[in-house]
């Protein structure tokens, strides 16, 4: 019996296409500002979800080119304006990928700050060197011309979209799809049955890599898959 013709992995059609989007954002200046850690804690408890999003998720995009020393605005301020290295380290260890809702993320930030300030009461009202201004972000989704129906087109899209698109699908997606996952991995697994590659991509560390590094890492995985057949 003649063997069925083998379809190259790179050309195998996905069950549904992947539409590359991007996001444009506008910063809104909030009414709250903090001049010490207690004020920041109060602000974190009461500010809008868009504020928490800005200072944790969004800041990763804004500083996507920095590999070390910058994980979120709360941590950075605790370190640079309040000189509270211990608190800064704990806040820096927050990994936004573990959160699929802003409520859960806010709760974790509040918990870290409360427990630190309980143990370090003098840090509570010590004036910071500069205030922390709470901001919120307005995000508008922008489609791109890239659509992938197979791995080859997916790689092509990945190479060409802006870094904001990588951020949108790889990091911002977690809140949208409410999964500890990203759009790329979901598509590879669900529409191309490439669970192993999807897992490898989802494990890429965004805190020790720039977003360009993330793009390169994803591409390496995809190109590796394409080369296998």
């Amino acid at each position, binding site marked *: 019996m003649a063997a069925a013709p083998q379809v190259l992995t790179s050309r195998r059609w996905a069950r549904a296409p992947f539409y590359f989007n991007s996001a444009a954002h506008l910063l809104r200046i909030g009414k709250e500002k903090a001049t010490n850690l207690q004020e920041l804690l109060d602000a974190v408890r009461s500010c809008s*979800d868009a504020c928490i999003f800005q200072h944790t998720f969004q800041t990763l995009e804004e500083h996507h*080119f920095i590999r070390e020393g910058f994980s979120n605005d709360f941590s950075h301020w605790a370190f640079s304006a309040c000189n509270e290295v211990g608190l800064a380290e704990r806040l820096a260890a927050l990994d936004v990928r573990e959160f699929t809702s802003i409520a859960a993320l806010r709760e974790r930030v509040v918990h870290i700050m409360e427990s630190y300030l309980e143990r370090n009461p003098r840090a509570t009202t010590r004036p910071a060197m500069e205030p922390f201004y709470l901001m919120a972000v307005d995000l508008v989704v922008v489609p791109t011309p890239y659509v992938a129906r197979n791995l080859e087109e997916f790689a092509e899209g990945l190479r060409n979209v802006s870094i904001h698109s990588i951020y949108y699908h790889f990091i911002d997606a977690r809140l949208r799809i409410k999964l500890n996952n990203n759009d790329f991995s979901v598509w590879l697994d669900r529409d191309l049955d490439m669970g192993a590659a999807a897992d490898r991509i989802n494990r890429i560390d965004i805190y020790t890599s720039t977003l360009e590094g993330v793009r390169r890492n994803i591409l390496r995985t995809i190109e590796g898959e394409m080369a296998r057949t």
Partner: protein
Amino acid sequence: MKKEQTQKPVEEKAPDGNAGSGKAEPPRVAGAPFKERRFRQTHLPAHFIERRKRPRIQTEPPPPPAPPRLEDYAAIIGKPELDEIRFLARHLQGKTVKMVNSTAVGGGVAEILNRLVPLMNELEVPTKWEVITGGNDFYEVTKGFHNALHGGEYNLNQQIQDIFMSYNEQNRQRMEFVEDLFVIHDPQPAGLIRSKSETRGRWIWRCHIDLSNPHAGVWDFLKPMVEQYDAAIFSSPAFTRQLNVPQYLFYPSIDPLSEKNRDLEESFIDKVCDDFGIDRSRPILCQISRFDRLKDPVGVIEAYKLVKKYVDCQLVLAGGGATDDPEGAAVLEEVMAAAGDDPDVIILNLPPWSALEINALQRASTVIIQKSLKEGFGLTVTEGLWKQKPVVAGAVGGIPTQIIHKLTGVLVHSVEGCAYQVRYLLTHPEFAAQLGKNGREHAKENFLITVNLKRWLLLFQILLGVAKPSKTS
């Protein structure tokens, strides 16, 4: 151990070529009021000494270059980014915009509008730029307001308020308000908001100044006008006031294709350095700013002197404002006195049309300094970051927004701190290069005109209800 100088000292020469003697014409700072500044004997080659005494400065403004097209930015920001801008604009096609400010030439706002308005029009978002007019009494009032809003003393009385309002009213009567969006820049034309009720458009107040510590009376006078706008835009969260309208953050921006920021041929940089007597074989520290005490040029010289004990370097202080501003001239005298007879402190009082020369000086620099004691946003810092230079700057005004300490540059709070950080950068070139690289990315991501163009389009979409921001929860 200090390295032995092998070069023979070169005797200082008078401008006429005679060997230096007490009779030589005193050296001078070009463009500055005459001031004797005698260099001590030095090991510099003669041509450097000569050029430092008589830098070649262009005395006539060159013709303005043609404004760039949107496509020209693709090489800088990438095609995908440009596509996003075009996409945002597509949804605004047919919507019209009017921008209003108080001056057509000179000043940062006019400089921004000169670039922004053609780009908007190229994107088929018809944008008109109009300038309000007024008599000397109006401009005296608005200058007083400007200083008062920065915290200065001011005696606001009814007559002043009447002058402000009557000129705003005259302009309001003269102008037509038929567009979909009105962007009013700064306090001078803020009173045009009285036309809002007669229009269908959305009104935006773009405040370019720092309102963190305004004169209470002046702000109380302006605030009711500002609160009639649909949105207000500030350059830093630190510059805002409590307002009952949405406030947005637009960082000031630079144009990467302007003469001050575009790429330059190495040969041109060499020529400029040669014209000014700058030795490119040794490290160059540079601060570009007006001769203004708030920029602390004397502090920069003190820091340089501390650095010089360890590293053989030169300091370039280049700026303007000392020719037509009596205070600037006084500061320049102080700077020259602080520099004394050190030939490696090169002071340049440049005319306003020196954008290309300033660009070249920044590109020739090993470290860029902006040791301000008070600052607005600090666009010279942005320019340094864009040119991929390590920047050492005072932690004031908008500078900490641009410089994330030890990641995109270095923040300092004192002469000693400045000197130490400069020394560190000069002796750790890899770290300096990393700061420069991060700094450029930071500028590209946040402080380029294309980023602001995108912000404008997005704000217009949101205010007109064309786009609805997605929810984050």
